[in-house]
Every structure is written in C-alpha cells, then in structure tokens.
C-alpha cells in the first residue's frame, strides 16, 4: 500500500525539507546581518551620566578629605599612634613608633569615617541614593601608600535614559471621521555607565604630615637648641610650639589649615613629649 503511494509522499517530504531550508536560511540571514546601527556623535547625549559621575567624584573627594581630618584627629587624641604608649601627665612620650600600627589604625578609622561622611548627605537623586547605599554597605576599598589614601569604588552602574523621539500621533477613526485621538509617543534609549572611581587623598597636600615624618623630624630636632625652629623648617604645614618640661620637651603642632571635623572648621593639634 505504501509503495504504491510514492508520489504523494514525495511532495510532503519535499515540503518539509524546503521549509526547513528556507527557515534555516532566514535565521542565517538574521545572524550574519549587522542589525541596528546608530551612531551618536554628540556627547551631550550622555552628559547626564557624566554629571552623575562628576558628582560622585566630588562627594568621594569631599568625604575623603573630611575623613582624613577626622581620622587624623581621632588618632592623635586617642592611643592609636603607638602600640604601647608611654605617658607623662597624660601626654604621650613619642619615643617609639610602629608605622604599620599607626597606619592600620588610620586606615581603619578612615574607612569608618568615609561611610559616615557619605551617609550624612540628604540626597534626593536616585543615583546618589544608590551610591550612598553602596558606600554604607562598605562596597569600596581603601589603601594607604606612603602619604596617599586611595579610595577605590567599582562596579557601580549609573543608569540614565533619554527620550529620543517624541511625536504626536493622530488617529483618525474611519467610522467617525470627526473624532480623533492624540497620543504622545516616546522612544527611550537607556544607557548604563560603569565608571571606576579611584580617588586619591594626599595627606601632605591637604595640609597635614604623616606620623612617620613627624616622628622622624622630632627625633632629628630634639637635640637641637632651637627645636621649634628646626621642626618648623621641616614640617611647614604646622605652627610649632616647644616648651621645656622636666627631662622632656613638650611639642605642640597645630595645623595651619582648618579642617571640617564633625561639621566644624578647626585646626588639628598634636601634642607630645620628646
């Protein structure tokens, strides 16, 4: 029965195979075609994203400088400068120094203060609120190399969109020619921008000195007759005061520049005995 129905089967098989070939060809045509291409030559199109990037950089830098001042102040006021502090009348005798200990403390305080500084802003912009959330969650890295703090903030997406086409459409209904409907049509282009933020906050350039330098200069100058002048010549960012106190010299370093600590402008003061 099947052998005798050969012609009918041939047409069906041919149909199946040809359909397959054509659909395959159509798919290939799609795969190898270039697709939609549009060149946007004007950078203003993504200006809004760059504005957000700039704002984040500004707030990171601001928070970085304020965190540096607050952390520095915390370190010099607390027992974080040397691992086993020796004191005379509650004043630190600066006769030993462990750079790693001081730097680790400074770094730890810097990270905590950076979170606090960013969290204080009452943003209402969506991107800035997301940025604030990420920083509060600790999604950033802080590194201290020599006298520079590096704040690294990555994997943050700035989302933006622009309406690129807006046209009034008028539908004239065929049945009732006098009525029409107006619609504003919008085409939206969404852009996601992932910049990497690497902010550096230089201790020296911001009007302070590293603890290592202060220790080194103090040691060099403690034998000098005019210790204040000696320190002042080497640590130009401070106003220096030296007083004789028993077997020690009482050194007071007051930053020439004022810093924003807890929303108050003040000089940072370091007092110790050498």
């Amino acid at each position, binding site marked *: 029965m099947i052998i005798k129905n050969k012609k009918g089967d041939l047409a069906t098989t041919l149909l199946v195979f040809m359909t397959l070939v054509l659909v395959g060809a159509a798919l290939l045509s799609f795969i190898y075609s270039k697709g939609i291409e549009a060149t946007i030559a004007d950078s203003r*199109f993504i*200006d809004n994203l760059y504005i957000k990037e700039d704002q984040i950089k500004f707030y990171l830098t601001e928070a970085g400088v304020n965190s540096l001042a607050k952390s520095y102040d915390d370190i010099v006021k607390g027992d974080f400068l040397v691992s086993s502090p020796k004191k005379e009348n509650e004043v630190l005798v600066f006769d030993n120094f462990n750079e790693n200990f001081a730097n680790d403390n400074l770094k730890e305080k810097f990270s905590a203060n950076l979170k606090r500084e960013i969290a204080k802003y009452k943003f209402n912009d969506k991107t800035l609120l997301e940025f604030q959330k990420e920083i509060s969650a600790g999604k950033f890295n802080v590194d201290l190399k020599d006298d520079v703090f590096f704040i690294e903030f990555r994997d943050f997406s700035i989302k933006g969109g622009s309406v*690129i086409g807006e046209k009034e459409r008028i539908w004239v209904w065929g049945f009732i020619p006098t009525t029409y409907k107006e619609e504003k049509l919008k085409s939206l282009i969404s852009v996601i921008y992932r910049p990497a933020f690497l902010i550096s906050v230089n201790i020296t350039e911001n009007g302070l000195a590293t603890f290592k330098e202060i220790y080194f200069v103090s040691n060099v100058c403690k034998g000098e007759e005019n210790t204040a002048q000696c320190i002042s010549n080497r640590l130009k960012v401070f106003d220096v005061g030296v007083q004789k106190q028993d077997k020690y010299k009482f050194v007071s370093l007051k930053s020439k520049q004022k810093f924003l600590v807890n929303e108050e402008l003040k000089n940072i003061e370091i007092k110790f005995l050498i």
Partner: protein
Amino acid sequence: MINKFNKKGQIASTITWVVAFLIIFFMIILFLAFTGLMAGQRQIPVLSFFYGAPDEINLEKYTAESLEVQQGLVRFLNTQTDFSGEKLKIKHLVFKDEAGINKLNEEAKLFVNEGIAAGKYERASIVLLSAEEKSSCILEEVTSEIFISSNKKIVLCVKLK
C-alpha cells in the same frame, strides 16, 4: 489494492499538495525577503510610517543639566577666599557665622557676573538652600546642585546663551 482502484483520488491529492507547497513556498520566500530587508535597516518601516523616524535624536530638549555648568560650580566652591584674615575655601564659608554667609553671597555675585560678562550665561543665580528645599530655577534654566554639608546645598541656576 484500494489505491489501484482509486487512481484519480491519488492524483487529486498530489495536485492539492503541490499547490499547497507552491503557496507555502511563496509565503516563505516573502518572509525571507522581508526579514533580509529589515536586517539591514535601523527602523521598522511600518512603525516609522505611523510614528516618524525613531532613530532621530533631538538633543536640545533633553539636556536638563549641563556638565560644564556643574564643573563651574565645583570650581567656584573650591576657590580660596580671604575671610577675616583666614584663607578658606568658599564651600567652607557656610560653617562660619552670618558674616560667612554674607561673604559667600558676595563671592556668588562675583562668579555670576563674571560668567555673564564672559558671555557664558545670559543670566544666572546662586542660592544657598537647606537639603529639603527645592530650587527655584525656572524650566528654561540649567540647574546644578551640590551638597556642601549634611543639611545645606548650593544651587546654581543658569540660562545659557
């Protein structure tokens, strides 16, 4: 056996299939041509006919903020000024007393007038607002706002030339 006696039916069936095949084949060719045509274009012709060219970008309407204006504001805030014998950045004047705010307003006026004199702005204004306040910039002005403390922000409204 049945087919042997039903030859006409067999021919009819085959002819139906051949016609059907030709129709389907023709439709698929059309499909292929249409997809090939579309693949090289940036817009869907049918939609374009109704809605206009969707790949046209009108930039003027969509720039509500300006990078240049914002960078100008940041530069202004970081400028050093003399305040009662002290060297301070303008952004730090808000942490001073009322005299500091007055000095900030003075500096703001200078900045705005410089921008107008240089032909960058048609008009501009800088105001100090609390964090919750909304800026009073009008629609045609470019707005840039920067928080300078936890509860204060500086807003620059500019009508560009």
